[in-house]
């Protein structure tokens, strides 16, 4: 059934059909509409779940940790400061191998406080052991919720999944979303049945002290599992496609790459803009394509390498910067190529919600013509930076 929904509500509709038992979140713009809609569902009896109104994001993540440990499917959502505040718990959840699904409405990090979209928050958690996806539109975020639980709760995986959606652009932007029927969802997503849980009939102790004789192996185990995840993601996507009759989750999306000499690499909703830009440039005679990275963690090295290895110019455009070095995505892509690499250019744009437009993308191609760049900030307003200490009058 098609509905015209903002991204947050598309998330809430999918979560409802996944029937979680415990939902807990702390309000932060621009995630608020997700949990508000879920609260409405519960209040009206459309969803049977425990809604826990916590006093901080740290506790929100802790509540869903407890629920998952007790064998009940749980959900939470957050952004930016909230994600960073709960980051301690997120590392904990990955280490405890609990299959939580979290939606992050990507937003810039303080300071300065800024409620608009960029990817600095999600990227800061890339070392945590979480599986991370970036979605392009509201249909994707809706569909990824089902696939995320399916992937996470696989007893061979048991790792948490973060679905990243651009704050405001997707959360508050309205698009048509096709919502499946409950029967279709139940066919695809079985009930949560964990291999270990807190159960008085089978008592276990979880979260032990792991000294140097065992800790290394726990990290190795997560690393190995994430390597398996790379193979399982496309399988889950194919199964999704067979039931729901539309494209499922994948590692990357190749947009007009096969015959392109030059490729832009990006993640998130900006890919929608870039796809239109690619079409425009191709009409103008430039050989251009887009490699959209969907799965960020585990990093699909082989897929990306194979898609880019025979290309001439690669433009990595990202909404994050590892301050003091380059954009994280640029660094990771550059590291895939040793002998005879293509020309890889790194660009930073859209931080703090500054729109990435066709002008931005044209500027990107222009700068690349002048020579190799590793972390070139696009659209900088240099007049703001003239004085050493800038104090508004």
């Amino acid at each position: 059934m098609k509905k015209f929904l903002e991204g947050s509500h598309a998330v809430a509709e999918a979560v409802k059909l996944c029937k979680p038992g415990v939902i807990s979140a702390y309000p932060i713009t621009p995630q608020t509409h997700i949990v508000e809609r879920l609260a409405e569902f519960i209040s009206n009896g459309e969803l049977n779940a425990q809604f826990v109104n916590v006093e901080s994001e740290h506790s929100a993540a802790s509540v869903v940790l407890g629920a998952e440990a007790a064998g009940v499917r749980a959900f939470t959502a957050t952004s930016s400061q909230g994600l960073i505040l709960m980051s301690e718990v997120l590392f904990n959840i990955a280490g405890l191998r609990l299959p939580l699904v979290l939606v992050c409405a990507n937003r810039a990090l303080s300071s300065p406080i800024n409620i608009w979209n960029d990817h600095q928050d999600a990227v800061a958690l890339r070392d945590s052991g979480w599986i991370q996806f970036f979605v392009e539109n509201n249909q994707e975020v809706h569909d990824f919720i089902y696939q995320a639980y399916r992937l996470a709760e696989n007893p061979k995986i048991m790792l948490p999944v973060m679905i990243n959606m651009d704050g405001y652009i997707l959360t508050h932007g309205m698009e048509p979303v096709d919502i499946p029927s409950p029967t279709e969802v139940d066919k695809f997503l079985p009930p949560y049945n964990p291999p270990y849980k807190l159960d008085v009939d089978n008592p276990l102790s979880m979260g032990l002290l792991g000294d140097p004789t065992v800790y290394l192996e726990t990290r190795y185990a997560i690393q190995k599992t994430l390597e398996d995840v790379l193979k399982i993601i496309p399988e889950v996507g194919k199964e999704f496609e067979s039931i729901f009759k539309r494209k499922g989750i994948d590692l990357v999306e190749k947009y007009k790459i096969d015959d392109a000499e030059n490729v832009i690499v990006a993640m998130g909703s900006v890919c929608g803009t870039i796809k239109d830009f690619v079409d425009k440039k191709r009409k103008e005679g430039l050989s251009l394509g887009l490699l959209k990275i969907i799965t960020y963690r585990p990093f699909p090295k082989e897929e990306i390498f194979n898609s880019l290895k025979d290309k001439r110019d690669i433009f990595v455009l990202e909404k994050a910067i590892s301050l003091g070095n380059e954009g994280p995505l640029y660094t990771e892509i550059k590291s895939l190529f040793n002998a005879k690499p293509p020309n890889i250019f790194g660009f930073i744009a859209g931080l703090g919600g500054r729109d990435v437009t066709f002008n931005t993308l044209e500027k990107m191609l222009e700068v690349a013509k002048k020579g190799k760049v590793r972390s070139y900030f696009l659209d900088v307003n240099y007049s703001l930076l003239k004085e050493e200490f800038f104090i508004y009058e």
Partner: protein
Amino acid sequence: MSDHFKDHLFVSGHTACSGCGQAIAARLVVDSLGKDTIVCNATGCLEVFSTKCPQSSWCIPWIHSLFENAAAVASGIEAALKYLGKKNIKVCAFAGDGGTSDIGLQALSGMLERGHDVLFCCFDNEAYMNTGIQRSGLTPYEASTTTSPAGKIWQGNWRPKKPVVEICAAHFIPYAASASVGFPQDLQRKIKKAASISGPKYIQIHCPCPLGWGFDSSLTLEIAKNAVLSGLYPLVEYEYGKLTKVFKISKKPVIEYIKPQRRFRHLLKDEKALKKLQEVADKNIEYYGLEKEVEK
């Protein structure tokens, strides 16, 4: 298997210090609650000495997450059980004094405010013992710790204990109480009473620490008793915010309590400082109405 493994839900083989008050308290709590109990334990001595991989002393379902979130994780477990319709399972959060009064206070307050059916037990050994005896919000006045050491200028901790029992009672929860391993049957009674109540409960248990306080392991119970009998550790019960019961004492002078403890040694040479500590005890006795004949 030896009987003593079958009789208890917290069993031998843990690596607590000899004579550890917390080991006694933890066992008394879970034994009183029974096998239908789930515990979420904050980081601290108890968690470390009871679950060093691959061993666990717990015979009930148990989870350790982080330092400050025991109350929040317990809330999540309680919500999950509610969703599953599983009744009569007691969910508990265990934490030390640091994990309760300092870093854990926010999560505790949130849990109490939301009214979860969770029993929060604070094992109060009056400092951050696991990390090396540092001062916490529940460190008593003039106690020497590594971050409030008694020296030429300082006389140990310069602040009174944070009134966490009162803070919890101020949430108007059904039951908030203090207890001591020096009075184990009283502790058992309070645990059983809490277990019979639905809603959020808080029990703060005084657990003397031979290593941290500096006394011989055989004195744990006597020192715990003297803390109560001196008035420095009042045993009280609050129901819905109202003080309903106190453990009446035949007052003992504070010096009898502090004499065997290295952490108070500096007071034995400083009459003025000792007097100030006696005043703290006297104030407690007056405030709670503790003085009467001791009832056995």
